[in-house]
């Protein structure tokens, strides 16, 4: 494709950085601040756009695994099991788009949270909570790596490497 997104974002960013930014010298502070944040946001998109599908698949695979572990722990949980089956089908299909992958993850996110919160057996609930916390540790490390271009990490070199 001639009009690939990376090139489009590159030319727009270059114009903004090299032509528009120097012309903002006398602008009000909030105008300059929002301009630089807009540049940063577009830069983030340019950096991550090629990987967005891989990231979504990694996230969904993680939630399917968490759902399987949770179902094994809790026993009968048809809503979560159905969401996990849906997740597996989405992962297996080459035709689904990224939005469908994200939607499958969101369904699993809801069902996992519901299972733990509505569980009446405190021992089972504790085990479910532990699974959730352990899973969150892994996924959050990836989310931090994903968001690194925004510049909030104090020691980015210490983040877990990308797993997508």
């Amino acid at each position, binding site marked *: 494709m001639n009009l690939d997104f990376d090139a489009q974002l590159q030319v727009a960013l270059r114009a903004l950085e090299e032509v528009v930014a120097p012309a903002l010298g006398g602008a*009000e502070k909030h105008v300059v601040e*929002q301009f630089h944040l807009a540049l940063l946001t577009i830069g983030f998109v340019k950096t991550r756009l090629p990987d967005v599908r891989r990231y979504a698949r990694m996230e969904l695979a993680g939630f399917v695994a968490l759902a399987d572990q949770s179902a094994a722990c809790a026993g009968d949980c048809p809503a979560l099991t159905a969401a996990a089956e849906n997740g597996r089908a989405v992962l297996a299909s080459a035709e689904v788009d990224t939005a469908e992958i994200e939607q499958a993850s*969101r369904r699993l996110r809801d069902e996992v949270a519901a299972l733990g919160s509505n569980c009446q057996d405190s021992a089972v609930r*504790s085990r479910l909570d532990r699974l959730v916390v352990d899973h969150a*540790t892994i996924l959050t490390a990836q*989310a931090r790596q994903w968001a690194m271009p925004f510049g909030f990490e*104090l020691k980015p070199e210490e983040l877990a490497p990308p797993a997508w």
Partner: protein
Amino acid sequence: MVGQYEIIGEAQRRHPTEATIDAIRARYPTEAEIDTVMTRKMRRRNGPGYEGVTLDLLLSGIKALVEARVGYPVTIAEGRWLSGGASKLQVLFDLHWRGADGTGNAVDRMVLRMEPAASVTESSRHREFEVLQAVEGIIPSPKPYWVDGEGEFLPYPAMIYGFVTGTAKPSYDSGKVSGLGQNFGPELRAQLAPDFIGLLAKLHCIDVAALPGLEHFQRPEVGSNASVIRQVNAVRRIWEEDRIEEEPVLEVVYRWLVANAPPLDHVSIVHGDYRSGNFLFDEASGRITAWLDWEGATLGDRHQDLTYAAMPSFSHYAEDGTTMLGSGMMVPEALYAAYEQASGLKVDPARLAYYNVFNRYLIAILTLAASARASRIRGTHQDVLVNYVVPVGFGTLAELGDCLAGVLK
């Protein structure tokens, strides 16, 4: 049922029905004024998003508000936008009036602080106004003049307070967005730290029971944890109303916070956002000239402010590259020790542990939910800034995982 988990969809969040709003209110009961503000936020979602307002519109609204309050004509001059802050819209202006006693001929510089349609922190102008009245003369802060709590004169709820001088960022540093992780440098840090600690101690020692006013606050009781649970529910409600997607770990944290809420041993005015970026200082003297952003203030536990000020999200590494300085001031342990000495109030490790979890829960939700939602619905005057802080929530989620590892049974 209170606390019962229900799955609600994006359509219900984006365009909530009255039944959806009522169900959420029932599940997460909180203080009456917080409930009013959050219910108003949800109802706004069925109206237009934020539409840019002109300076002239706001200046005419200011004039109408002031004249209604003082009862005579005034002149508003030199109006201009004021930058800074992530949540509210601010306008600087000169008020020509008869002065506070109504008999003179005065010109006072003032600030209009108005909500946009949606916000990083949905809050009450009544509460912010009342807490500024409560700390007047005790903590350097803007003098509150008038409040338009329901948006009668201005497009959205707003208040007017006196302009205070000072800077939020050192002149030699371009500074961070909203002061997050601001580095003051070794010399200025050493000058500012005593005020940073001393004013927090002073704030928490105010005798709340003896304070008049504060009508929009529900007064907590020593020995009870009911007010703490109301606060936790308020945060949980933001998550329910604003989130883009569920983070199951936050439901684990919510249940833990409710089950382990400590009873209050002392009622303090809690600033709620006590960190670098929220105070002004005089660079020459190294003294704090004003504490700003009181919108999150509550009546509660001092450990909330203490742990908040020390959070990594508001910290940076010192020159040695390994020492983490809370709010750019000092390491948490030193901060707590200095506070204990300055206030005479005990710093309780168990309550520190609790509020370390609470504050991370709060920040995770304000960023991953409130900020993300407000910018997506085009709800603010600076969506790009509000969206920019969303990833802060991931770092906070990681810290929550560390905190939970130590406290989960």
